[in-house]
């Protein structure tokens, strides 16, 4: 029998910044502070698919939660969730300890926070910072969690790396992640509004 492992499900762009929307990449490839924090604590890494890249492409516009909140995009996210869920289920069934590291501020991969601006649309000429950060999941995380719940799997401990919060503070994001990882494992899941 294999020993119980610690596994971190990580947003695609945390291992591959090429997945980011134009002008959103802060690193050439791997987000090294996240990888170092996880590996130094014994976590194996499992990359999640990037829903925005496969849906809207590498040259997509910036967008907020409300723009991606469409039946077609949710269907797409459910397809991705069904593709990765068997692997996650396998980890959980054999007793591995899982955490989910998303991307706070992202309309798709936000865990504690997502970006919101209900009147965004049309020609993309909005001024910088013309959006709000709301305490809620992004759409991909909502659909992934729904897929896992539908399989009778327990909620995952989850947090987000604050890359899409408007102004990125690497030291603060790292301290926040390390605090999350060093907390003793709790039952239940941290909801977005509780953080």
């Amino acid at each position, binding site marked *: 029998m294999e020993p119980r492992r610690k596994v971190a499900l990580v947003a695609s762009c945390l*291992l591959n910044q*090429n997945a980011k929307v134009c002008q959103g990449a*802060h690193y050439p*490839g*791997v987000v090294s502070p996240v990888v170092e924090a996880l590996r130094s604590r014994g976590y*194996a890494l499992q*990359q999640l*698919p990037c829903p925005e890249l496969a849906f809207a492409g*590498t040259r997509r516009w910036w967008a907020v939660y409300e723009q991606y909140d469409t039946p077609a995009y949710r269907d797409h996210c459910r397809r991705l969730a069904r*593709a990765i869920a068997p692997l996650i289920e396998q980890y959980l069934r054999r007793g591995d300890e899982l955490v989910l590291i998303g991307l706070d501020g992202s309309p798709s991969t936000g865990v504690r926070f997502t970006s919101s601006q209900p009147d965004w649309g049309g020609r993309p000429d909005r001024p910088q910072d013309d959006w709000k950060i709301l305490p809620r999941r992004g759409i991909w995380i909502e659909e992934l969690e729904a897929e896992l719940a539908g399989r009778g799997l327990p909620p995952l401990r989850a947090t987000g790396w604050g890359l899409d919060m408007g102004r990125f503070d690497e030291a603060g994001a790292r301290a926040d992640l390390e605090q999350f990882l060093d907390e003793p494992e709790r039952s239940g899941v941290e909801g977005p509004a509780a953080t």
Partner: protein
Amino acid sequence: MSLDARGWRMALVPDALINPPAGSAALPDALPILQAHGYGVLQLPPSGNYGPLLAVIADQVAEYSHHGYAVVAIGLHGTAGGGLHWRRLAPLLRHREVALPPRHLIRPGAGVDAEAQRLGAFLAAYDVPVEEQRRWRR
């Protein structure tokens, strides 16, 4: 793109290279090498039947490959398909009109330092043609 730090290069990488099994000291640690050369990672699942996930990965590779990104594959010599699910992934890529990425195979037991150097040299040398870079990387 002046505010953007993306490296425009990435590698398909087997799970066994990202999460080496305990006691596999014969393998170089690929992640820091990829990181040092500015590569992102597209992680392949461990061995098993993950067809839908491979299709999703192939979709992503197609999107990158068609828009000026360099994609390579790092495999493990002596494992089925190099640990890259190559027998299933290659047709998925061809179906999406993607030229198969150049593959570099790491040889377990050939010397960790030597293999790390060989991987680094491969990563440093590869990119898409200059015309492709000029077309997309503005």
